[in-house]
């Protein structure tokens, strides 16, 4: 199992686009042979609660936790995540913060979804 936590700024990404992003991320994870399924937590940050540079934020955060992978697999996946986000939302590269962080399979299996 791979987990993906997304922070979206309220009002920026329509629900149908969020659905396409989830499907696209799942496809990427499968293509990268990281897992067959992704456990998502999509968190909409209410207006006035997300800030970048001290001003209202337009940045999305996509944080993937997965079993450890070599960097030569991580980098293309990060690029693909950012490209997916930009193509579906129209955001700039500076408006997507993507991470793929390693965590043990035991930790992933033990995590209770919210």
């Amino acid at each position, binding site marked *: 199992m791979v987990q993906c936590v997304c922070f979206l700024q309220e009002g920026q990404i329509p629900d149908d686009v969020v659905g396409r992003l989830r499907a696209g991320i799942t496809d990427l994870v499968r293509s990268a042979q990281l897992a067959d399924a992704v456990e998502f937590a999509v*968190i909409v940050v209410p207006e006035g609660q997300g800030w970048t540079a001290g001003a209202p*934020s337009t940045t999305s955060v996509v944080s993937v936790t997965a079993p450890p992978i070599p960097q030569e697999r991580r980098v293309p996946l990060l690029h693909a995540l950012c490209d997916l986000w930009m193509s579906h939302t129209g955001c700039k590269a*500076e*408006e997507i913060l993507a*991470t793929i962080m390693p965590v043990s399979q035991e930790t992933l299996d033990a995590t209770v979804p919210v």
Partner: protein
Amino acid sequence: MPLYLCSTPADDLTLDARQRIATAITDVHCEETGAPRKFVHVVFFEQQQAAVFDLLTPEAAPNGRCQLYGSIRSGRTDDVKRKLVTGMRRAAAEILGLNRDDVVMSTRDVDAKWVMEGGELLPEPGEEAAWLARHADVSV
């Protein structure tokens, strides 16, 4: 990156207070690290959204009136991290009218090679100059 999370009691913060805290966190981070402001993110959660906070901060349980949690690029010295924590706790306490002990804070190092922002991996410590030059003119 960095990404700072701020957890407060429900309905405790006005928009003005959130903006002042976000600005103060940004100021402290940039003063202590030299990072560009446009990559400093601050997200607020009310403590009724604790499950959200716990999702990204598994080792830090809310135990104060205001909790700050920073995911920062690895490679910062202990002295810099101490200044970040001290400065941000002081600022948040002043804005909220709290004792500094009522503001708790922890940080987590995140490897640069795990993070992409601005379409590139974050620079490793000591390799910031070229990366910053490439991103100098970008406005968000």
